[in-house]
């Protein structure tokens, strides 16, 4: 995208800020509605068709609400961390291939360079740092406990998450997300032309990878059974406890964007990105990410919440070794060694 006007439109409208924000609200609706139907409830119903505008209404309502900064809080940190929680995942979505503006069938991201996968993984970790600072600076005991739990959880899931994300990169021989997508498209095409045992093995190994990846994402997104850092009944929404009004609106929107980012990463790394027959790339992107959101929602209503010690121990005992084995299998299959 060399044309500055196209770049501006891409950043501000599609597939940049406006699209991602709207899509995040859509994902929140999908998630809420699916969870409600799975739990024998109705979910959002009255605002817009089947309550589709409810997330937007909630967002606007929170913007109007009174914004309180506790006297005991460390004010600059407390005030700026919601902005970080909102902006960092939003910035990371610019690296995701969704749709090119210059051609209907292209999907190069707004920003793309060798190593952008590492940047995305880094940005996702930085969000947790903002979360930790926000909770810790709120001057509330529950906030402090929630912040500590968020940091502890990161120590548990961050390593398998990054390890598994590297798997497709090794196979594609590139750390650039768009190249990983291209590799998936070419290898799927080759596989359909000439099926091979090696292809089936790669699909199997990557399936283990995607399972680990989704479990780590449940923790990253603070969904059940890993909503330990905001456990409502134990520590009253943990690190978010003192946030209200505009800051809470930003935090909620940040959570939705994180969900989009997570679904987009699963799509780009394991499900072939926005590529697909007949429909244009952005349609496939929406279909695939919505499917990922549904999977995440379905998993999150199935379980009771783990305790922090159970979660950390489980991650180190099972997820990390499994992730290491998975990467070793990927390396063996790719023929690097």
């Amino acid at each position, binding site marked *: 995208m060399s044309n500055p006007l196209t770049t501006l439109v891409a950043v501000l409208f599609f597939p940049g800020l406006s699209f991602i924000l709207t899509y995040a609200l859509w994902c929140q609706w999908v998630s809420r509605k699916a969870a409600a139907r*799975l*739990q*024998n*409830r109705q979910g959002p119903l009255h605002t817009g068709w089947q309550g589709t505008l409810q997330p937007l209404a909630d967002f606007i309502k929170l913007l109007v609400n009174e914004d309180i900064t506790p006297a005991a809080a460390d004010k600059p940190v407390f005030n700026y961390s919601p902005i970080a929680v909102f902006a960092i995942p939003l910035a990371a979505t610019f690296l995701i291939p969704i749709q090119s503006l210059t051609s209907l069938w292209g999907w190069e991201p707004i920003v793309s360079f060798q190593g952008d996968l590492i940047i995305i993984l880094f940005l996702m970790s930085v969000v947790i740092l903002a979360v930790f600072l926000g909770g810790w600076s709120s001057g509330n*005991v*529950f906030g402090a*406990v929630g912040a500590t739990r968020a940091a502890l959880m990161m120590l548990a899931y961050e390593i398998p998450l990054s390890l598994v994300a590297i798997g497709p990169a090794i196979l594609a021989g590139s750390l650039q997300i768009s190249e990983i997508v291209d590799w998936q498209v070419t290898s799927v095409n080759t596989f359909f032309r000439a099926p091979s045992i090696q292809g089936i093995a790669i699909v199997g190994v990557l399936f283990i990878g995607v399972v680990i990846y989704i479990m780590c994402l449940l923790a990253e997104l603070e969904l*059940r*059974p890993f*909503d*330990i850092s905001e*456990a*409502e*009944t*134990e*520590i*009253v929404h943990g690190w978010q406890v003192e946030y209200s009004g505009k800051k809470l609106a930003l935090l909620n929107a940040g959570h939705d964007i994180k969900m989009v980012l997570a679904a987009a990463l699963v799509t780009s790394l394991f499900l072939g990105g926005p590529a697909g027959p007949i429909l244009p790339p952005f349609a496939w992107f929406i279909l695939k990410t919505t499917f990922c959101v549904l999977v995440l929602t379905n998993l999150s*209503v*199935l*379980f*009771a*919440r*783990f*305790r*922090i*010690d*159970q979660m950390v121990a489980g991650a180190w005992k099972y997820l990390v070794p499994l992730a290491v084995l998975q990467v070793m299998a990927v390396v063996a299959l790719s023929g690097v060694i």
Partner: protein
Amino acid sequence: MSEREFVIPIGPQHPALKEPESFLFTVDGEVVVDVEPRIGYNHRGIEKAMESRNYIQNLYITERVCGICSNAHQTAYTGAVEEVGGIEIPERAKYIRVFMQELERIHSHLLWLGVAAHEIGFDTMFYYVWRDREVVMDLLEEVSGNRCNYAMATVGGVRRDLPRDKYPKWHKMLDKLAERTNYYIKVASTEKTILERAVGVGYLGKEDMIRLSGSGPNARSSGVPCDIRKLTPYLIYDEIPFEHIYVDNGDVLGQVLVRTLEVVEAVKICKWVLDNIPEGEIAVKFNPLQRLPEGEAVYLVEAQRGELIHYTISDGRNMPYRHKIRAPTLGNIPSLVERLKGGYIADIPITIAGIDPCFSCTDRMAFYDEGKDKTWTWTDVELSKYRKEWYSR
């Protein structure tokens, strides 16, 4: 307190507590070292109010001690008053009281099961259990006209009859409840994440439980057979064949099992009552102006949460001289404190919810000076003076 320890206040306002009560937790990291409960945030003056109303008016006050065990309170109250007055109630009324008591037990235990699932973060089970609880709520509404505060018992009998043509339908509803409860027993004892959060959490052994004098499902989950319906049967409980449920797990899983198994037993009792209920009158006449002879009586009822004690003294008027209510939660607080020690912060809500606390029924207020070891009373004038001083500071 060492440097690593800090104090987390839970309550008087906290989402894990549905009623105002304060617990000060001294924690070391995520582990609870010490607990200091403080009760008495909710003073409603119910016992005092009862002293100036007649026995019929008091029916409706006792019922409002608790929203969930309203019928248990009414049963205990009417039992105590009838014992003082020497009133013999018809046989059919006894059956209807038992029927109401067991329906209320089902409703309360299912409600608890949902809340417990919510406390461990399993909201899906919470929604499912509460949907199935609607069956018993509908049943209660059909029997009494209300979903809670049924106003069924009265001094001398009950106020509404059970119409015989409804029995087949009620049998079907009870069967559905038993079927769903058995399903939840299966889920609770096999689902991995529930077991992770329930097994060994808030453990208290049998000896400790006897020493700390817990009651109800809380004590029965530690293997203490203490069901009042078996130990000192009231109404017709000595005629009904039902099992004395107690398990020796001692933890949250034990509490889940005791309550769910009790729901199954309660369904059996209800069905037995519907099959065996005799014909006849449902109440003997009792006049609100009727004076009771001098005397006193204690009536024990196995409420859903444990042993409920009503103690009434009559001085020969048509209103009680004194009526004392001891709600089961008061007896369960010492064992709760012991259960909480050594656990994790994350397990505090489920352990507190585990005894099915009802703090508002328990709380009374008294003035006591710890240093001088003296108690005193205040009139309402003194109280309002104190209030003015407090708010003008």
